[in-house]
């Protein structure tokens, strides 16, 4: 089976974040980026299915130049080729605009299955995969915790996470778009050989015009949401911060838990 995986490069949220001077996003300069967590699991799942069924994986990503690094990493992990949706017009899209662009790029390929992560760790719209499926006219499933391609590759048994520790198992016809949840597998590490081979693997750049899309259909212009500002939330009401070196802070905390909260 030939499988496409859509990955997003996102800021490392463990890093120190600052609000950009225009107040509409975070400062990206000097910020470390990485492949979105659930997308790493989607890539691993795609590699495993391709290995089991004898096919190849094509990885897609939308974003500025830095995204090449994420694509190279995916190629090093085992993807055969990459498509980079690279156009200033693509930037800042909501799930509808980004899904429209990715669907147009995917439609130019030949894929039996499309995998995405379930949610981006930055804006977290959690809908791009479903929007892609709508454009392609394929079934989809979100928060997928198991994919079992059935004999002949015409269908898959899919496990979807529900709330409160329950999973639902169902069958979908292929091709489909499956939005993978973190934890479905154990993503591999890139080998030195993989990293060397990745340098020779092709990455095709696609601008909006290459996909037959007007600049007003994608990115900020093609979005229905406009971000006005981002900010750190006001710190908690009633939260008492104990500001002291560890030994002292520990003593103060124990005393408060005993005498104020009366829980020790």
């Amino acid at each position, binding site marked *: 089976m030939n499988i496409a995986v859509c990955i997003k490069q996102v800021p490392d949220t463990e890093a120190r974040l600052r609000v950009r001077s225009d107040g509409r996003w975070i400062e990206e300069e000097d910020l470390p980026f990485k492949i979105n967590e659930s997308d790493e699991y989607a890539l691993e799942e795609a590699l495993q299915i391709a290995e089991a069924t004898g096919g190849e994986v094509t990885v897609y990503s939308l974003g500025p130049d830095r995204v090449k690094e994420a694509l190279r990493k995916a190629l090093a992990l085992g993807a055969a080729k990459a498509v980079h949706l690279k156009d200033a017009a693509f930037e800042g899209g909501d799930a509808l605009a980004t899904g429209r662009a990715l669907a147009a790029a995917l439609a130019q390929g030949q894929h039996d299955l499309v995998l995405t992560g379930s949610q981006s760790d930055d804006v977290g719209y959690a809908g791009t995969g479903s929007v892609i499926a709508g454009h392609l006219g394929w079934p989809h*499933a979100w928060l997928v915790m198991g994919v079992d391609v059935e004999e002949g590759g015409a269908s898959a048994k899919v496990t979807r996470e529900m709330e409160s520790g329950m999973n639902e198992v169902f069958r979908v016809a292929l091709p489909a778009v499956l939005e993978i949840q973190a934890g479905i597998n154990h993503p591999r590490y890139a080998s030195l050989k993989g990293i060397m081979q990745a340098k020779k693997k092709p990455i095709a750049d696609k601008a909006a015009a290459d996909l037959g899309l007007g600049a007003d259909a994608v990115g900020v212009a093609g979005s229905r949401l406009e971000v006005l500002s981002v900010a750190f*939330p006001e710190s908690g009401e009633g939260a008492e911060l104990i500001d002291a070196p560890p030994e002292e802070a520990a003593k103060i905390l124990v005393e408060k838990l005993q005498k104020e909260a009366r829980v020790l």
Partner: protein
Amino acid sequence: MADTVWIVLQQRDGALHRMSREAIAAGRQLADATGGTAEAVLLGAGVGALAEQVAAFGVTAVHVADAPALEDYTPGAYVGALAPAIREAAPAYVVFPHTYQTVDYFSRLAQETGAALLPEVTGFEAGDGGLVWSRPILGAKLVSKVKVKGDGTVLVSVQSGAFSADETGSGSAQVGALPGDLSGLTADREILEVQEVAGDTVDLSKADVIVAVGRGIGGEDKMGPVEELAKLLGADIGASRPVIDNGWLPRDRQIGSSGQTVAPKLYIGLAISGAIQHTVGMKGSQTVVVVNKDANAPMFNLADYGVVADVHEFLPAFIEAVKAAKGA
């Protein structure tokens, strides 16, 4: 014409999902703010009795799509029922509870109907030129304010706990059929079974004291002091999702939307950043202690007592202090 606000309720086997009441509260506030009416939408098979209950929840109408194809939830049948109705009635807003089921189909519904898609909001306020919505971004470390551009219906999902279910009112609304033909609905999934993920589960829901760890704990090999503290306090150990996904603790220790809901007297969160997927499961805790080296971790917003420190430096000191206090 006044702006209509639809609220799509989630039900399973004739029982409402707890967040459906919060969605009604959000929809009613939205109707008040926009001078519109709040109307409930209910999908299912044989949900007439539930529709009569919903009619008393302070909505002005209840639109019911009742068809055998809607007995089990599938995105195909749900989008198939809602899309023509939204096109025909063109409500200003359609409000959903931000549940796993909603997220599974409502983005596709937006794509299909040309509606705007506004996921996971925690509130709204009036601004110049329309409503300004708040939603968490970057693992809830920041809050984003957004507005909707263009005309037409807006699909919006409301985050758990953002609107109080107590605000659902009373009344007796007219119950009627959702516009559209339901005879051609088709499921795009063949449902095979529903499984419990963690069979022989640890029940954290009755624990008095919980020590919970997050990704920042750093690894399975770093759990020693955590276990020592838990033993000293007679606590159960819980965790946020990344700890489970990394295999550092078994899945039956997970607290949050896909794990357990806990309400201990004392909850100690160690190196947990505070993503909503975790906090939704521990909000009911009485006393919350948070230890995190990142002073901006959203977890501190839920804390009664917070310590900004590296957990690995703080834990040995805390264990000694607890020992000293217990010995006294």
